[in-house]
């Protein structure tokens, strides 16, 4: 079937099989391999992308469901070669080790910071409970989200999804 989507600001019109998962469409058809598949059944959060500004699991979404939607992946965050403040914060705090889970945490973290630039550590922990990291032990990830919120507040910036 024919579908139209906007991904990271660019419009695409493609012929896809209706049983094509969004994660496969993004990774294989569009080459956006920052979207990671950990479990394939909704339990790890590594495949998180934003659909119309909300974080969704791309392993449990099929391409026909997103016809007409706007999708954002980790590849859409940098601007002119500059990392997004949340990406920078992950680098600074050591919130990235092997990096496999990082895109998922960043995409879900963006949705939190869009709603609240000053979340408590407990709020951050609760918010990322659908994402699994096998390396960091999570505290540096919480640090990263906290730090990004602080920097954005200090710079008077907001997150727009």
């Amino acid at each position, binding site marked *: 079937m024919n579908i139209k989507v906007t991904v990271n600001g660019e419009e695409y019109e493609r012929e896809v099989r209706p049983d094509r998962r969004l994660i496969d469409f993004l990774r294989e058809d569009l080459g956006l391999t920052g979207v990671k598949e950990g479990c394939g*059944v*909704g339990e790890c959060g590594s495949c998180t992308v934003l659909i119309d500004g909300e974080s969704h699991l791309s*392993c*449990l*979404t*099929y391409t026909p469901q997103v016809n007409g939607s706007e999708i954002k992946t980790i590849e859409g965050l940098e601007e002119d070669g500059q990392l997004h403040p949340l990406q920078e914060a992950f680098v600074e705090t050591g919130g990235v080790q092997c990096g496999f889970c990082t895109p998922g945490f960043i995409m*879900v973290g963006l949705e939190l910071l869009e709603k609240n630039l000053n979340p408590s550590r407990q709020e951050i922990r609760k*918010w990322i*409970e*659908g994402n699994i990291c096998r390396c960091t032990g999570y505290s540096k990830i919480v640090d990263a989200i906290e730090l990004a919120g602080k920097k954005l507040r200090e710079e008077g910036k907001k997150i727009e999804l």
Partner: protein
Amino acid sequence: MGFELLVPENKDELFTLMAESNYYLLAGGTDLFVKIEKDLINPDRILDLTNVIEGPKLEDKADKVRISATATHGELAGSPLINREFPLLAESAESVGGVQLRNMATVGGNICNASPSADTLIALYALDASLKLESRNGSRTLPIDEFIKSPGETDLGRGEFLKSITIPKLSGNYRHFFNKVGRRNALDISVCSMGFVLKETDGKIEDIRISFGAVAPKIVRPDSVENYLKGKKLTRKVLPEAKDLLKNEISPISDIRGSAEYRKQVAVRSLEEVVNS
């Protein structure tokens, strides 16, 4: 593998497609697609309900609230209306999965999947919710307990879909309690869950509704416990009798998450927590 996924634009299109061939209905896909991924089902055709169910997700009526079947858990948990009128429902919705899952999973899917451990069902049972089903021939309304038949099985007929859920408002000062016991907090299927709303007048129980999940093939409203407690004070004194009554109302199974005996103990312990709360 290999299915068609169609997104009908309105009810008419949906009913026509439903009449043509076998189908599975789709809302958030968080149960359906997991079943496909695990090769438990092999559909030829999937019909997406997202555009079919129109109207507001939540409607505040004088004495009731109407919830669209496609309202997501995130929408319920974040709604000021639901938090004010039915905090038990808000809390149970908030306990489901993680943020991404709550953005996707719908309350209609939670109901129609008919799992004995479905979290919003706990609240919907305690709140005496009723369901509106629609087909080409019209609509019918029935209490939630009549809709759920057994694990995974409902009264949904061919050509029908669940349109909305209606919950009567509670008048007066109600307390609520929600408890979900699992091996970890996030993303786990519970070993036992419990929901409960309670109204006391002059220190005595005027209205009490209790529901238990994952301790029987369906959610249980233990009538005998509710009836016994009505008119009494909620103190430790009522516990021995209430516990015995409860044990006779539940029939848990043993599985990889816990043994039947363990589940019974957790259920009884939840009742104690209510008294102590």
